[in-house]
């Protein structure tokens, strides 16, 4: 079984969920005979390939060229399809980041199949791939068999497995395609540097913060923890935070290692979007808030007293 893994890199930096996707692919390959081929598209691929080389790929193909300098998912998918066909591969795997979901869906369209999207588990029994994926933002879990090849799978960030294997052979190739849609500009600002869907730690705020200006408390805490800042639907709808920060069924579904909910009561549609987080901390003054039902650790109290103390103590512990 030949498995293509799209490795996502930005400015030469590998995205952590891509390393997990490589690990999951290698596990599949090792449960029978198989080869894992990592693919990196765009400039500074060589630097990126170096930091991904021991994560599970047997080979890494770097595709670069003018057409990929300002390529979006549409252009990257063309390269993946070309490599898939040249290699006569059987599977494509990537991390289910925002771009990853788009790239693999476009690849699937050209290959004429569906994507098993945002999987939390993937196993192989002889030549049958079995997956598990949350649906309804985590209110239900779906188990499926992929009944035909090519099989296309995206893996939810923080659910793959990081491995350490022999270094991959790296091959550089020229880009072969050019999409008609391209990036023509970029304006810094407004959106956090870490995408919520791939953050390892998220600090999220709700109505309890009382005023949009008070989010600075969470931003400082997030910086200390190298975390992303999220928000409840109530404060996004009130215009306190951008839509891209919203966690929940109509926002982002997240599964970080640590989710800290501050002043969030825990409406069902919010819980749906974050209850697959590994560890959940809830800080809320209402001891009956539903968020405490899913919290690993709860602190009942006034967030304006708890957060400054948390920040001060973390600072001395972490530095």
């Amino acid at each position, binding site marked *: 079984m030949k498995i293509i893994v799209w490795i996502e890199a930005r400015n030469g930096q590998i995205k952590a969920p891509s390393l997990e996707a490589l690990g999951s692919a290698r596990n599949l390959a090792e449960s029978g005979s198989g080869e894992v081929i990592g693919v990196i598209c765009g400039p500074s691929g060589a630097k990126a390939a170096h930091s991904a080389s021991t994560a599970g790929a047997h080979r890494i193909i770097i595709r670069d060229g003018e057409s990929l300098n300002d390529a979006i*998912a549409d252009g990257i998918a063309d390269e993946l399809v070309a490599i898939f066909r040249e290699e006569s591969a059987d599977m494509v795997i990537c991390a289910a980041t925002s771009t990853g979901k788009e790239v693999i869906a476009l690849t699937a369209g050209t290959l004429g199949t569906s994507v098993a999207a945002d999987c939390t588990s993937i196993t192989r029994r002889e030549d049958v791939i079995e997956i598990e994926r949350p649906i309804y933002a985590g209110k239900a879990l779906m188990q499926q068999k992929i009944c035909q090849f090519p099989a296309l799978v995206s893996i939810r960030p923080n659910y793959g497995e990081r491995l350490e294997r022999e270094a991959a052979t790296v091959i550089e190739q020229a880009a072969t395609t050019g999409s008609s849609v391209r990036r023509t500009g970029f304006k810094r600002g407004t959106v956090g540097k870490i995408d919520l869907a791939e953050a390892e730690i998220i600090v999220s705020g709700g109505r309890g913060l009382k005023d949009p200006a008070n989010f600075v408390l969470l931003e400082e805490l997030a910086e200390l923890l190298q975390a992303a800042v999220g928000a409840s639907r109530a404060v996004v709808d009130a215009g306190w935070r951008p839509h891209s920060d919203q966690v929940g069924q109509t926002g982002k579904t997240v599964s970080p290692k640590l989710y800290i909910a501050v002043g969030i009561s825990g409406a069902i549609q919010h819980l749906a979007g974050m209850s697959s987080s590994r560890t959940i*901390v809830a800080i809320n003054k209402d001891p009956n808030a539903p968020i405490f039902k899913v919290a690993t650790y709860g602190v009942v109290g006034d967030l304006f007293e708890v957060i400054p103390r948390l920040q001060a103590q973390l600072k001395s512990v972490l530095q």
Partner: protein
Amino acid sequence: MKIAVCMKRVPDTATRLTFAADGKSVDTSEVQWVISPYDEYAIEEGLRIRERAGEGTVTAITVGPEGASKELRQALGMGVDDGILAVCDEPLDPIQTARSLVAILADRADDIVLFGKQAVDSQGAQVGALVARLLGRPFVNDIAAIEVSEQQVRIERDIEGGRETIEGPLPIIVGAEKSLNEPRYPKLKDIMQAKKKPIEKVTPQTGEPSFETVAVTTPAPRPEGRIVGEGPEAVDELIRLLREEAKVI
């Protein structure tokens, strides 16, 4: 300007789910249906593109059982000109839904086809992309702004660290993000008028599925959590637990 919006009905996000007797699907008999929230942004933007152009038509298309004509009527009430329902009672794989839509879209020569960025039930975020590839048209998901001029579109979307601008040709297929607009509420007069607007029913061409569903279940409940304490005095213990027990910081 010819515009199509592909939409899906989904259980209301506040619905508590129960499972069908076969253990392979959600029991929909008691479900309250709504238009998938992201599809509402797609419908609204389709209407705005038509309004800015000063001419054109917007068609809403869905794949689903007869009952899904109710959600199509809601779109017609918002101002969509006509609807197409590909009647299908069985749950479909994403590629089967895409093939059904392609059979409808292939002959229509739309300048732009809009989807929601994902349906909030199945959360695959893929049918729009699959359709784009099957039709051989470019695709951009998660759009936060769109300007359509002659044969050209300019799109903005939020990515990590900022907002990117994308340009491409028409015809194009796009997926709507929440920040795109604020969907209008239909007025009573428009809802009444919508009853007279045409909904065409077609038989979908689904082809073979990619998956076999083994089970749909309730996820295992989270292990019981605990209250660490009250007020700022609880912070030291919280940090100790995060470091020594959960080992996450």
